[in-house]
């Protein structure tokens, strides 16, 4: 085992334009959140990709388990009435 310490792993989310959702772009190593924020800016916004940055310690992210799959997600699949395409609107009706 190495005695070296490369810092904590952080996940980075970027908001490309104001108002849009934050999107996961990758990760980086840093010893604390101040360093992590600066690094995120240097690493992930070199080509003007950023309006806002979120950083989260990788260990703090709670993710669904792969095995959750069916029980977790399938029930959403058969409730098609949640989608606008399910409904028939007569031609000519506007703004709906």
């Amino acid at each position: 085992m190495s005695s070296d310490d490369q810092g904590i792993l952080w996940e980075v989310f970027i908001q490309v334009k104001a108002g849009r959702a934050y999107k996961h772009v990758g990760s980086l190593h840093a010893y604390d959140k101040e360093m992590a924020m600066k690094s995120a800016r240097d690493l992930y916004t070199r080509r003007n990709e950023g309006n806002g940055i979120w950083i989260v310690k990788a260990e703090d992210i709670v993710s669904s388990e792969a095995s959750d799959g069916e029980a977790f997600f399938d029930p959403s699949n058969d409730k098609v009435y949640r989608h606008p395409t399910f409904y028939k609107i007569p031609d000519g009706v506007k703004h709906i």
Partner: protein
Amino acid sequence: MKDELIDYCLRLGDSSLILSHRIAEYCSKAPILEEDLAITNVGLDLLGQAENFLNYAANLKGNTNADLLTFKRREGDFRCLHLVQTPNTDFAFILARQFFMDCYHQILFKKLLNSKDETILGISKKAIKEVNYHLDRSSDWIKRLGLGTKESNERIQNAINDLWMYTDELFTDNSTDLSMEKNKIAPLSSSLKDEWSQMVVNTLKDSEIEVPEDIYYSLKYGKDGFHTEYLGYILAEMQHLPLLYPDATW
């Protein structure tokens, strides 16, 4: 006035050029990958600033361009500050040098936003955004190194001590400074000292780094064309190809 304006642009351009060059030497040698990336960003920004000032100087001179100024000028015609010529002794030296220059640049570019010279004003508008970030970075590192471990504190103290003597040059006025001030193009270098000192001393104190003594060093300055022994070697490397192949364009 024109000669002094050219001289002033060369001072700012050459200083950023050589500082950027020192950063380029450090490529792939940083303590951690993220830092290699970050410090290169600073180097790229500085190169951009250098190019802007050298382009302007070239336009004013006529019959030349930024590349010719960079690669074909003799040492004595460079106007870079001594501080930027100092070598990459270790990470502490690199950050101390950067911190001193970032404080200087931030104060200077802020004042240059009032310049009567349109071009200098334009360059400064862009540069100040970059410099604000550079200073945020370097002052953060000074703190980390000052307060980190006993070893890092010793190393940064050492670097601050050794580089201190080069900071005098940032605040002395020569005939160029007097002319720039008279024509409302730039502030006197001496007018930057108090703000710079305050900024630097505050950060050093917060970082448990002792402020070195203010001694007068009898030095002849880079902004007057008298350089450290380091510059010769830097230029030998930087100018090597165009000098070896004088007819070539790259």
